[in-house]
């Protein structure tokens, strides 16, 4: 009986200490969990001005005009940079494969990524996405260097 009472007393003391510790932590933990919409608007305004300043700085460099359509000089047709990868493929593979099958398969993979990742695991999903991103980055860069 005495042992049981001692144990109960010990448990109660430990609980008290635990409660005190939790209360003390609550007292010191004054970090806000939410911010108001007004504070968000201030942050957004600052971000907008920062991005605008950066864009204005970049845009201060004059953007050259392209070659006039009537110009008789033969030119090497360039794709916009984001389609450089497709043009790189078009120069090497049959048009249906380079122009449709590979881009459509990539898009299909992106659309179904959540379902693939659910079946095979999120790490596999991340790995497959990175391989795809690397593939398109490399061929886009290869096209840019070649052009």
């Amino acid at each position, binding site marked *: 009986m005495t042992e049981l009472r001692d144990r109960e007393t010990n448990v109660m003391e430990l609980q008290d200490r635990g409660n005190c510790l939790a209360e003390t932590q609550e007292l010191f933990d004054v*970090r*806000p*969990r*939410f*911010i*108001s*919409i007004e504070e*968000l608007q201030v*942050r*957004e305004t600052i*971000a*907008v001005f920062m*991005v*605008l300043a950066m*864009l*204005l700085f*970049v*845009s*201060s*460099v*004059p*953007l050259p*005009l*392209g*070659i*006039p*359509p*009537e*110009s008789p000089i033969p*030119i090497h*047709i*360039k*794709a*916009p940079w*984001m*389609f450089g990868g497709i*043009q790189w493929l*078009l120069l090497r593979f049959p*048009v*249906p494969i380079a*122009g*449709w099958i590979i881009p459509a398969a990539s*898009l299909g993979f*992106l*659309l179904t*990524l*959540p*379902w693939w*990742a*659910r079946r095979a695991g*999120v790490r596999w*999903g*991340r790995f497959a*996405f*990175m391989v795809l*991103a690397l593939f398109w980055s490399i061929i886009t860069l290869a096209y840019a260097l070649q052009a």
Partner: protein
Amino acid sequence: MVKPVRSFTFLQHIRPRRIPVAALRFGATLCLGGISFLAFLITVGTGVLLLFHYEPGKQAYISVASMVSLAPYGGIIRSLHFWAAQGMVVTVLFHMARVVWHHAYRPPREKNWVIGVFLFLLTLILDFSGYLLRGDREGAGAAEIAQSLLRGLPGGAGLAALFLGSIELGHGSSLTLYVWHVFILPGVLLVLQLWHFWRVRRDGGVRAL
């Protein structure tokens, strides 16, 4: 109990009154979605100003040249339009990579991932149509490639006519493409973006009150 009007709940989700601090950590999102939306707004704003001088079709190149050299601030507005569009493509790409890296496409965000992929595709098409509308030789060449690619599909001739219109040799710009670039594609993009933001909040990113 009175049910709130649906449009009101939509606005509440777009602009909630309180936002969890954890959802706003810079490292959590890198602000890439917000920056790409801002780039879209800048592109729309500068695009509206460019409309006052631009002429689609055979006069496209001349109108762009006169806009740059004669219109007040024409050059800088065109530059802003171009760089904001490029910035949008880059930020959308990095935004996608960030979402995959953090596995943020997992349930319940699967639908929003699909919306995001369509947004990415539309951004690319919008950028490509802008490239053709410059009316220069490169644009005309790219238009010819796009036209022959589309014509390779079954029923592709109709598709090419629907999207590119009657593009003549040496001219990438057409009235049809102009309508797609100025009205249809940005309109669809805006609607999808608002749906994307709404879903971010609905799926627990930032909860409305």
